[in-house]
């Protein structure tokens, strides 16, 4: 195998990986402020694509359609938290997680009924032939995906480290009661983090649509891969989620290269299990120490 060919596999892996990473960031955001896994994250990814297509077909320019798609999805995220999760917020993590599963089913079915069963697409952000680079072909849309991933992870890291709101989010993840005692409006923090996670998922979903098309049923796979990426890297840490996504994509691509495409998902899953076995906190994540 030539080096150009090997590099092509790496490029392919990082392309899928960026998608997984963007979805993983949404898991991390919600986990960071609530300590729960939001299984509706994949549906936010789906809604971003489907709604942007809807606005684009209404005649909006691509940029506006994308913006409207992200804003509407963020609205769905906020409403979902306010109407479905907050009324049961004291019921414990398991109940909340199950509510997110129910929410994902509702979003999926409603989308199927409102927008129909057929797949649809958006034009590429910057159309043109793929860029040749030392014998390796790179799609322009992949550059957008990488760019978005970098911007998203930088913005989130800044949010966590440097802003008052970010500190409030981190405080919430440690203990809602303590955060509330410190004067933090925990309900607002949780709601905003759902809105942000939805917006992020939507951004990923619409950025991928020119490459893969979108439809009402794309959320499940995206959610599963994004969840795996978040776990692999380490939940709660944006940089770890992105690394988890890229590693997962690379693993799949290299399994195709050196083993067989039939087993690529199985191989990625086995690696995930091994990592969880050896490092339950993920590749990057720090073990959470329980203090009594």
């Amino acid at each position, binding site marked *: 195998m030539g080096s150009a060919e090997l590099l092509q596999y790496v490029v*392919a892996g990082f392309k899928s990986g960026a998608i997984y990473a963007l979805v993983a960031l949404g898991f991390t955001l919600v986990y960071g402020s609530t300590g729960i896994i939001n299984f509706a994250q994949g549906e936010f990814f789906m809604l971003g694509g489907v709604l942007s297509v809807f606005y684009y077909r209404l005649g909006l320019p691509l940029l506006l359609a994308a913006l409207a798609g992200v804003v509407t999805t963020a609205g769905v995220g906020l409403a979902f938290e306010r109407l479905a999760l907050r009324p049961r917020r004291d019921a414990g993590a398991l109940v909340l997680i199950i509510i997110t599963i129910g929410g994902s089913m509702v979003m999926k079915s409603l989308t199927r009924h409102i927008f129909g069963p057929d797949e649809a697409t958006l034009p590429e952000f910057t159309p043109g032939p793929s860029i040749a680079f030392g014998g390796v*072909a790179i799609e322009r849309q992949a550059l957008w995906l990488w760019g978005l991933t970098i911007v998203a992870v930088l913005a989130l890291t800044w949010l966590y480290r440097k802003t008052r709101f970010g500190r409030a989010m981190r405080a919430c993840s440690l203990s809602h009661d303590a955060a509330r005692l410190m004067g933090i409006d925990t309900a607002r923090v949780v709601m905003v983090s759902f809105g942000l996670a939805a917006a992020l998922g939507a951004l990923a979903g619409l950025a991928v649509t020119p490459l893969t*098309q979108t439809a009402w049923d794309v959320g499940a796979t995206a959610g599963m891969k994004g969840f795996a990426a978040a776990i692999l890297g380490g939940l709660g840490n944006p940089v770890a989620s992105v690394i988890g996504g890229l590693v997962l994509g690379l693993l799949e691509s290299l399994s195709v290269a050196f083993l067989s495409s039939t087993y690529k998902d199985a191989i990625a899953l086995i690696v995930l299990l091994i990592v969880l076995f050896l490092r339950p906190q993920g590749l990057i994540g720090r073990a959470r120490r329980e203090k009594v």
Partner: protein
Amino acid sequence: MGMGTRKWLALVLVLALVIVPLVGCAAPEETDTEETVTEEPKEPYRIGAVLSLTGTYAGLGAPEKNTLDMEVARINADGGVDGHPIEIVYEDDATDAAKAQAAVVRLIEQEGVIAVIGATGTGGTMAMRADIERAQVPQVSVAGGTVITSTFSKWVFQTPWSNSLVVPFTLDYLKDKGIKKIALITDTGGFGADGLAVLQAQAAKAGMTIVASETFNPGDTDMTAQLTKIKASDAEAVVLWSAGKEAAIVAKNMQQLNMQIPLFGSHGNARTEFIEGAGAAAEGFKFAAGKILIPETYGEDTLSYTVATDFKERYTAAYGKGPDTFAGHAYDALYIITNAIGDLDEGFTPSDLRDQIEKTDSFVGIGGVFTYSAENHNGLDASDLVMYEVKDGKWVLAE
């Protein structure tokens, strides 16, 4: 938490419950069947239909249901079959074989249907077999898997071209173009796996060598890795067997990798969504399918042409877009059953109906001209297929 939140929640729930059925049914339900029946109506003939209205194959089940709605309304407006109106009892299997099996039991035991159309998918179709055979009710499947008729059942018929018909047709075309080494890329779903098995079995017979064989899963978003592997082989053409939206990704990834060898698909790609999804990468894509996509290919002076253009016009008027091949499969299944009913005397049993369906001879449908026999429950042959090519975003006849 106050009552306010509860009331809000309740309101949203109620709204959702009211809106969902409205939105779901709003489009096609304009055809009321009762009005034109003049004499006192005889008891309706009930036919079951197990279709995938949700799930992976929802994009196939929707045109199938549209077609049945439209054609049944038309039959009943003309006075039904021998004065009996036709009634379709629908079941949605959600693209789940287990649900298809449960649905067929309900249709037979509770609804008392005399025949079953479906399922949309090969998996669902096969899952229904034991109950179909036990209840001795004829089944006309609209799924394309070879196994449906190659694993023969006296009770099961099929309207789409099976892979065992389309694969040799495609390989012959490749051979005529001087292509001897092919690479395969197939999905791991029912249709792709069925196609792969037939391709592997038939390639040698057509003098072809398979130099690479890659798969992908339904829901995958990138096939660059598989295609990089194919690019490194000495394949002269890529053959893709997949009915899902992933097919468009394969075409795009090939273009991205600047692969110059041609891409051949299957009748599973005969959907405008494929062309939209693949965009410029769809140019030059070739696939074999029936003649409904370009009715002129039937020959303009043939009965097939008249039947197909009539169907195409009515379907387009009713639903705002032209029928695809899947709509055609449902059309054929319905008329094969109703024609057989029309040929029988009053008081027939489902078993009589099966015998009559098997006698279907030269029925001019959308998928082709059907002739069933005691050994052949697919009824079509290679003359019902043509090779298409995508040019300027449209289907044209390939040279």
